[in-house]
C-alpha cells in the first residue's frame, strides 16, 4: 500500500471537514424546519467514509449503504449542492427530490443508494457482487451497514450467499455502539461483531474507524485482497456518532462522559495534530480551509433553497421505467 | 303581480302533461278565460285558458315539451315585469321549492282516447322516481324511449326494473340483449323506432293493468240477426236522412236496454265494494290511426234509437278530429267493441277498467243452422263475446245477460215488452 501523500492528507482533512460542517448545517436547517422527515447525522464517523472511500476505485467500484448516507456520496465526489438540494427535496437533488435524507443515489458515481430498511441493502450488495463475478470484472462492492443490521435475517442470508459463491463484497459494519437507542451489547451475544463471519467461514477484520489514516491503510489492504480473491469479508469498523441517532433522539441511553471521552478522539483533531506534527500544514492553512469549506456549505444551502420544487405534473415520473 | 301558470291536470289518468303548442308568443297580450295554450293529455289535446290577463312574459315549457303536473309552464304579468322574480317567489312558496324542469321528449301528434275511464290515485310528481328500483341500464333505456318507469312492474329482486322489463313493454330489444332463450331480437337495421304517443302509453298502461288485475272469463253466444236486419232495412227506407241509424246504433240501443235489466253487469270493481250503476253510459270503441278511443254515450238506456244514432255520429266525428273533451270519454259503465264491419267473426276484448265487462261484436255471417224440425236452414248469425271480470260477475250472471241480449236481438218486440 502506498502511504498517503501530503496532498492526500490535505484532501482527507478537507473531506472530513466538509462532512462535519455540512452535517452541522443540516442539523441547523432541520431545527429551523427548512426540511422535515428523517435526518441521521454522520458527525463523528467521518473517518470511516473518508478513509474507506478513498481506498477504492471511485466511479468504478460500487458502494451501497444504509440511511446514514449524507456524507459518503460527498466523499465519492458528489457536490454538496446535490446532497443539500436532496435534503430539501428539490428537483436539483441527487434523487430529484424523490428520495430525501435516507435515499441519496448516483448512477454516475456508482453509489447505489442509501436504504431505509435496516439490513435490506445487504442482499443487494450480494447481487452487485454476483454481477461482478458473472461479468468477470476487476471490481468490488462495498456495503455499509449499521451495527444493528447484523441481527436482521437478510444480513445472514446475504453473507451466506456471498460466502458460498465467492462474491467480491466488503461488508462494513459501522459499529457506533448503538442501534438507534439500544446498545449493541444488549442485542448481540458477540463481543466482536466481526465474529458473525465465522458462521459463514468468511474472512473478517476489525478496523479502527476513528483514525482516518488507520482506516485508509487497513481498508486499502482489505479491498485489494477482495478484488484479487473475490472472497467476501466482514469488517467491523469501530466508530462513534457524536449526535443522536436522529434529530429527535434525547440520548438518554448513554452518558455525557462517554460522549466527551469519544469527542477527545475526534477524527478531525487527530488528523490535524498529525499534519501539524509532520509539518504538512499550519494553523493558517486550517483557518483558510475552514473558510473555504464554510463557503462550499453555504453555497449548497443557497443553491438548495433557491432550487425549484419538483413540478406537480412530474409526480408519475419514474414509477415505471420505459 | 305576475301569475305563474301551471300544467293543469285535465284528466283523472293524466300523469304528466305536454304542451302541444302555445297559441300566444312571449310578449303577446293574453286575456283571462281565453285560450292561450294547447295541452296534450294522455287522451286528447285541449285548449287551455289563461288564468290571468296581461302579457305572456315567459314560456317555461315550450311546444312539444312535457313536464310534471302542476309544474310551472308560463308566467303572465305586466310587460316590463321580471318573470324570474315571480317564478322564484312562486317556487319558494310552493313546498319542496324547485320547479320541475321541462323534459326533452317530444310527444307524438295529439289524439284522444278513453282507454281509461276510472279515477286513479293521485300522483306525486318527481319524487316517485326516488322510490323506484331500476337498474341503471333500465333507467337509461326507459329515458331514451320516453317510457315512464312508474308504469312498469319490475321482475328483478325487490321489484327492481331491469332492462328486459323495459324491452318487454316496448316489444323489442332496446339494447343488444339477452334473456329468453329462443328469443332473438330482429337486427336493429330491420326495425324503425316508433315514438310513443301519450295515447299509446296510456293504452299500454291501462290494458296491462286490466289483464294483470282483473281475472277475465269469456262467454260467447250466437244470435240470429235475420229479422232485425230485415226490420232495419225496411225502416230506414222510410225515414228522413237525420233519422237513419246503423247496425251499430241498434247494437248500442239493445245492449243498453239489456244492461238496464242486468245491473250486475253494468257495474265496476272498487276494491272494497262493487258499484252497480243505475244508468248505462255506453262506451263505444272507435279505432283511429293513432290508437283506440272510447267515447261515451251517456244515459244510452234512456235514449231513443234515433238519439243514439245522432250521438254516435257526433262523438265519432269529434274523435276523428281529436276534439273529444274529458266529459266525452270519461264515466263509461260498459263498453262495446265492434269489429264486425272489419269482417272479424268472433273475438275477445280486454275489459276497460274499472268496468266489469266488455262486449266484443263480430260480423254477421250467413250460417247453416239445424232448426227445430231437424232441417238445415241458412240464417244470418252474429257471434258476440262477453268478457267478464270474475271479481264482479259470475258465469251464470253473464249467461243470463247474454240470454236477454239474444232475446232482444232476435225479437225486438220483446225488448219493447220487457225492457
Amino acid at each position, binding site marked *: 500500500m502506498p502511504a498517503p501523500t501530503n496532498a492526500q492528507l490535505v484532501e482527507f482533512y478537507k473531506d472530513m471537514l466538509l462532512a462535519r460542517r455540512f452535517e452541522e448545517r443540516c442539523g441547523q436547517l432541520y431545527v429551523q424546519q427548512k426540511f422535515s422527515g428523517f435526518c441521521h447525522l454522520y458527525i463523528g464517523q467521518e473517518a470511516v467514509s473518508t478513509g474507506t472511500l478513498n481506498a477504492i476505485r471511485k466511479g468504478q467500484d460500487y458502494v451501497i449503504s444504509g440511511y446514514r448516507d449524507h456524507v459518503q456520496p460527498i466523499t465519492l465526489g458528489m457536490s454538496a449542492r446535490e446532497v443539500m438540494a436532496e435534503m430539501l427535496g428539490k428537483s436539483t437533488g441527487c434523487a430529484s427530490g424523490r*428520495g430525501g435524507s435516507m435515499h441519496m*443515489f448516483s448512477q454516475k458515481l456508482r453509489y447505489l443508494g442509501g436504504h431505509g430498511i435496516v439490513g*435490506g441493502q445487504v442482499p*443487494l*450488495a450480494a447481487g452487485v457482487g*454476483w454481477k461482478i463475478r458473472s461479468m468477470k470484472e476487476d471490481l468490488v462492492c462495498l456495503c455499509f451497514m449499521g451495527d444493528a443490521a447484523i441481527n436482521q435475517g437478510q444480513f445472514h*442470508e446475504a453473507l451466506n450467499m456471498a460466502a*458460498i459463491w465467492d462474491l467480491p463484497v466488503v461488508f462494513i459494519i459501522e459499529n457506533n455502539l448503538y442501534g438507534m437507542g439500544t446498545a449493541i451489547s444488549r442485542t448481540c451475544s458477540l463481543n466482536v461483531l466481526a465474529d458473525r463471519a465465522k458462521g459463514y467461514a468468511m474472512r473478517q477484520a476489525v478496523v479502527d474507524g476513528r483514525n482516518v489514516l488507520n482506516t485508509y491503510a487497513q481498508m486499502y489492504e482489505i479491498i485489494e485482497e477482495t478484488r484479487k480473491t473475490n472472497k467476501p469479508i466482514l469488517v467491523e469498523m469501530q466508530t462513534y456518532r457524536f449526535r443522536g441517532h436522529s434529530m429527535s433522539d434525547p440520548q438518554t441511553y448513554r452518558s455525557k462522559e462517554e460522549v466527551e471521552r469519544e469527542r477527545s478522539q475526534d477524527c478531525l483533531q487527530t488528523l490535524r495534530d498529525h499534519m501539524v506534527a509532520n509539518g504538512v500544514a499550519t494553523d493558517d492553512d486550517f483557518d483558510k480551509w475552514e473558510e473555504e469549506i464554510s463557503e462550499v456549505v453555504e453555497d449548497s444551502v443557497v443553491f438548495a433553497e433557491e432550487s425549484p420544487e419538483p413540478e406537480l405534473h412530474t409526480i408519475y415520473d419514474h414509477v415505471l*421505467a420505459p | 303581480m305576475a301569475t305563474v301558470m301551471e300544467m293543469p291536470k285535465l284528466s283523472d289518468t293524466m300523469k304528466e302533461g305536454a304542451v302541444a303548442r302555445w297559441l300566444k308568443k312571449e310578449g303577446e297580450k293574453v286575456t283571462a278565460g281565453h285560450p292561450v295554450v294547447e295541452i296534450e293529455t294522455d287522451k286528447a289535446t285541449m285548449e287551455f285558458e289563461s288564468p290571468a290577463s296581461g302579457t305572456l312574459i315567459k314560456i317555461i315549457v315550450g311546444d312539444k315539451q312535457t313536464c310534471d303536473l302542476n309544474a310551472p309552464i308560463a308566467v303572465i304579468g305586466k310587460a316590463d315585469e321580471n318573470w324570474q322574480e315571480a317564478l322564484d317567489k312562486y317556487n319558494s312558496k310552493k313546498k319542496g321549492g324547485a320547479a320541475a324542469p321541462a323534459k326533452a321528449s317530444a310527444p307524438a301528434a295529439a289524439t284522444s282516447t278513453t282507454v281509461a275511464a276510472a279515477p286513479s290515485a293521485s300522483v306525486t310528481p318527481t319524487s316517485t322516481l326516488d322510490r323506484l328500483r331500476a337498474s341503471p341500464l333500465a333507467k337509461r333505456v326507459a329515458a331514451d324511449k320516453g317510457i315512464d318507469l312508474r308504469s312498469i312492474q319490475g321482475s*328483478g329482486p325487490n321489484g327492481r326494473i331491469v332492462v328486459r322489463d323495459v324491452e318487454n313493454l316496448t316489444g323489442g330489444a332496446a339494447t343488444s340483449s339477452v334473456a329468453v332463450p329462443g328469443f332473438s331480437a330482429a337486427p336493429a337495421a330491420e326495425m324503425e323506432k316508433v315514438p310513443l304517443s301519450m295515447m299509446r302509453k296510456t293504452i299500454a298502461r291501462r290494458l296491462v293493468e286490466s289483464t294483470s288485475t282483473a281475472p277475465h272469463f269469456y262467454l260467447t253466444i250466437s244470435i240470429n240477426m235475420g229479422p232485425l236486419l230485415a226490420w232495419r232495412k225496411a225502416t230506414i227506407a222510410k225515414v228522413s236522412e237525420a233519422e237513419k241509424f246503423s247496425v251499430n246504433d241498434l247494437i248500442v240501443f239493445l245492449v243498453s236496454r239489456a244492461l238496464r235489466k242486468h245491473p250486475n253487469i253494468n257495474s265496476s270493481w272498487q276494491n272494497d265494494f262493487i258499484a252497480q250503476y243505475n244508468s248505462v253510459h255506453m262506451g263505444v270503441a272507435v279505432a283511429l290511426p293513432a290508437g283506440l278511443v272510447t267515447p261515451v254515450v251517456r244515459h244510452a238506456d234512456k235514449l231513443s234509437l234515433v238519439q243514439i244514432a245522432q250521438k254516435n255520429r257526433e262523438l265519432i266525428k269529434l274523435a276523428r278530429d281529436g276534439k273529444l273533451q274529458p266529459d266525452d270519454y270519461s264515466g263509461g259503465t260498459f263498453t262495446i267493441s265492434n269489429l264486425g264491419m272489419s269482417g272479424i267473426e268472433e273475438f275477445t276484448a280486454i275489459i276497460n277498467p274499472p268496468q266489469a265487462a266488455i262486449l266484443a261484436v263480430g260480423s254477421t255471417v250467413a250460417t247453416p243452422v239445424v232448426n227445430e224440425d231437424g232441417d238445415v236452414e241458412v240464417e244470418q248469425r252474429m257471434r258476440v263475446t262477453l268478457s267478464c271480470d270474475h271479481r264482479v260477475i259470475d258465469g251464470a250472471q253473464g249467461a243470463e245477460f247474454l240470454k236477454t241480449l239474444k232475446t232482444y236481438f232476435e225479437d225486438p218486440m220483446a225488448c219493447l215488452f220487457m225492457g
Partner: protein
Amino acid sequence: MAVISYREALRQAMTEEMERDPTVFLMGEEVGEYNGAYKVSKGMLAQFGPMRVVDSPISEAGFCGLGVGAAMVGMRPIIEMMTWNFAIQAFDQIINHAAKMYYMSGGQFPIPMVIRGPHGAAHMLSAQHSQCVDHMLVNVPGMIVISTVIPADAKGLMKSAIRNNNPVCFLESEMTYGREGEVPDGEYLIPIGVGDIKRKGEHVTLVAWNKMVYLALEVAEELAQEGIEVEVLDPRTLQPLDENLIFESVRKTHRLVVLEEGWGISTIGNYIVDRTVTECFDELDAPPARVHNHFVPMPYNETLEHEVLPNRERLIAAIKKVMYR
C-alpha cells in the same frame, strides 16, 4: 405451431431470452441440478451452466434481494420462487426495494427483474401453501404483475417480462404446468397490459385470470346450453390492468362477474367492480357479482377445500344472479 405444455412454454421463453441476452440468469431453489421443483427449468443448467442457472439456498429474501442488487447494476435476473407463499418472506425485497428503487433514485436505477413462481391453491396443500397474493402485489406502484396459465400467453408474456425494465411479478399455477396448448415458435411477444377475450359472448362479461380462466371457460360452455352466452375476459396482466377491454365488454353485455382466487377483500375483483361501476354505471343492468374464496385459511380436507375455492356451483349461481335467471 407446436402443442406444448405450460411449463415448456415458460422454459422456452426463458431459454430463448437467455440465449439472446447474456445478462439474463435464473436463480432459485432447486432450479439447477434438480431441474426445478416443477420441472420448469429442466435441462437449463446443462445448457447454460451454474453461473446462469443458479441453485440458491432456501433464503427467499436473500436471493430476491440479490436479484434486486444485480438488476441495479445491469443484470436481468429471473428469480424463481418455489411458490409465491414463500415469496412472502421476500416481500421486503419486492415491495421496499424492487418496486421503489427506480422512483426513489429519481429514475437512476431501474430494476429489470422477473420474480416468478406458482401462485394460489393447488390441491390439499393447506393453509400456508395455498395463498393468493396477487391483490397485495398490484397495490404497490413500481411493479408489473402478470398472471397467466395459458401456454401461448405464458411464452409471449414471459419474454416481454424478461425484456421489461421493471420488476415483474409473474404468477403461475402448479395445477396447470402440464396443460397443453398451441404456442408459436421462436420470437413471440405479447405486450404487457393487454387483456384477451378467451371466449366471445353477448350476455355477461366474466373476468377471470390464472387457472380460473379454465373454470370460466368450462362454465361458459355449460351455460351456453341454457342460452346464456358468457364472454370470458382474461386480463393476463393485472398491473397495469386492461380496464378499457373490460369496459368495452360490459358496455356490450351490461353484466359483470369477476372470478378470482383469494379472500375477496380489497382485491383485484373489488377494483374491477369499482372501476366498472364508475365508468359504466348507466350500462349496468345488474349489480356486478364476484366469486372468490371463503374468508378462512385454506383447510386441508378435500371437500372443505373445494368449498373454500371458487367452484363451478358458485360461479353458475353468480352468473344466473346477474342474468336474473
